[in-house]
């Protein structure tokens, strides 16, 4: 049952990721990304990471992507992007760089590091409520409190930086 769900969701996830890259229409692309994020949330759910799945939907699909779609609606009201592609010279680099990346992935998959990391026996059963909010909360606010707080400071710094940049451009 779980396996069937996994394969269906995985196919939809890969298809939507491809559609995101291949569609010329920016709104369609953004909406396919929403579908993709939803699929990943279902995958989290299959791994019994309930809180992570809901956070994924609320934050990525429900907040960040809404802003993306909103920005596209405001800035590009037409159906397709118009004008020449400003990133055209980069296309020449795309093929060799893609090949390098593919080679790297192949090498890593073949390397002994990856094979050693693969579990031979099935992983032990998760303790009850492992993906629940209590576990996540305890990890974030006790065991990893410092990195967690530093991340929030980082986000705040990014926010202030964006504001400063935008203000300077306007003035």
């Amino acid at each position, binding site marked *: 049952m779980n396996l069937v769900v996994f394969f269906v969701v995985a196919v939809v996830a890969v298809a939507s990721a491809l559609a995101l890259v291949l569609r010329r229409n920016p709104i369609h692309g953004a909406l396919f990304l929403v579908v993709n994020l939803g699929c990943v949330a279902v995958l989290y759910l299959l791994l019994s990471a309930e*809180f992570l799945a809901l956070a994924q*939907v*609320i934050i990525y699909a*429900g*907040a960040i992507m*809404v802003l993306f*779609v*909103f920005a596209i609606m405001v800035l590009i*009201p037409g*159906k397709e992007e118009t004008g020449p592609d400003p990133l055209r010279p980069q296309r020449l680099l795309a093929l060799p760089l893609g090949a390098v990346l593919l080679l790297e992935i192949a090498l890593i998959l073949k390397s002994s590091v990856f094979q050693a990391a693969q579990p031979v026996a099935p992983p032990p059963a998760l303790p009850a409520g492992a993906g629940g909010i209590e576990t996540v909360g305890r990890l974030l606010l006790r065991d990893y409190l410092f990195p967690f707080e530093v991340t929030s400071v980082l986000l705040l710094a990014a926010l202030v930086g964006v504001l400063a940049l935008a203000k300077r451009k306007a003035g």
Partner: protein
Amino acid sequence: MSATLTDLGIAFGRVAFVMLFVLNMGGLLTWVERKQSAVMQDRIGANRASIFGLRLFGLFHPLADAIKMLTKEDFLPARADRSLFTLAPLVSLVCALVAFAAIPFGDVLRVGAREVPLQAVTLNAGILYVFAMLSLGVYGVMMAGWASANNYALLGGQRAAALMISAEVAIGASIMGVAMVYGSLDMMEIIRGQGRPLFGWLAWIPAWGIVTQPLAFILFLTAGIAATKRIPFDLPEGESEIIGYFVEYSGMKFGMFMMADFVETVVIAGMTTALFLGGWQVPYLAADGFSFPWGATAPLAHLTVVTLQVLAFCLKVSLMCWFLMLVRWTLPRFRYDQAMRLGWLGLFPLSILNVAVTGLVLLAWRAP
């Protein structure tokens, strides 16, 4: 085999109950909207639809509406984005419909050796689920505005998106206080927590959310009304004069947007009931019957208790729907900038303040 079949049947029954409850409430609300506004404005209201001369106070009007919408021409604007235009009302309605699934409508029902939680889906973080589904509903509105290839619709969609985002931020922040007081994100646990009595000489009052979190109640209700996009926050659609995101829609697709608004009203009423009005709790009713604070007791059978609880939940949701209708027919519409200012400079800081104060009080409470 028969055990799994029974389990499947029980799961189906739980989902069916919630589905039928929400759909019927949504349909009935179209009637309530007409009749309640008529009573408030000293009119008679819609009463012409009849089957064999039977009118039933206009209760057949939702049926007549459905027939009208299904038989109307399904118009598609020439330059519209076909797939998104068709998908948009579906997204709106489905997100609103599935949101109710995590709201419990009763305590655990014991049949023989089985324990059936009266809730369509039992979730560890149920509030977050409802919240996630509400926040996904924005896409339907934005897609509709964009796909119509109409600038007025596009502007309406943007107003809707801005309004719903600012409302959801306030909803999320006001829920936090409730989750802190009852120490859970599971709606069942929160409702059980609301069954306990308050402290000291106030022990005759059950600790409902509206008593422990009065500020959050007001903030949540305001933000909730804004999330349903109905008057006084109907600036995305402005059915009477400004043009909204569904201006190009007709027939059943428009009907689905209308329905989504009504269903969202039911969801907000259900959430308010579950978080602030004690959910399925009946005052002084415990699992084995009534036990009043002055000492009197009235033992009741398990089935009676559960029935009373489910009825109490339905009654509370109906009352909240009535109240939301009352608001909708009383207040004038906010202007766009007023609604934004209310959301970001009023509701949001106040709910953060509520969280901070709640945290301090809880710390002081548990310190000794």
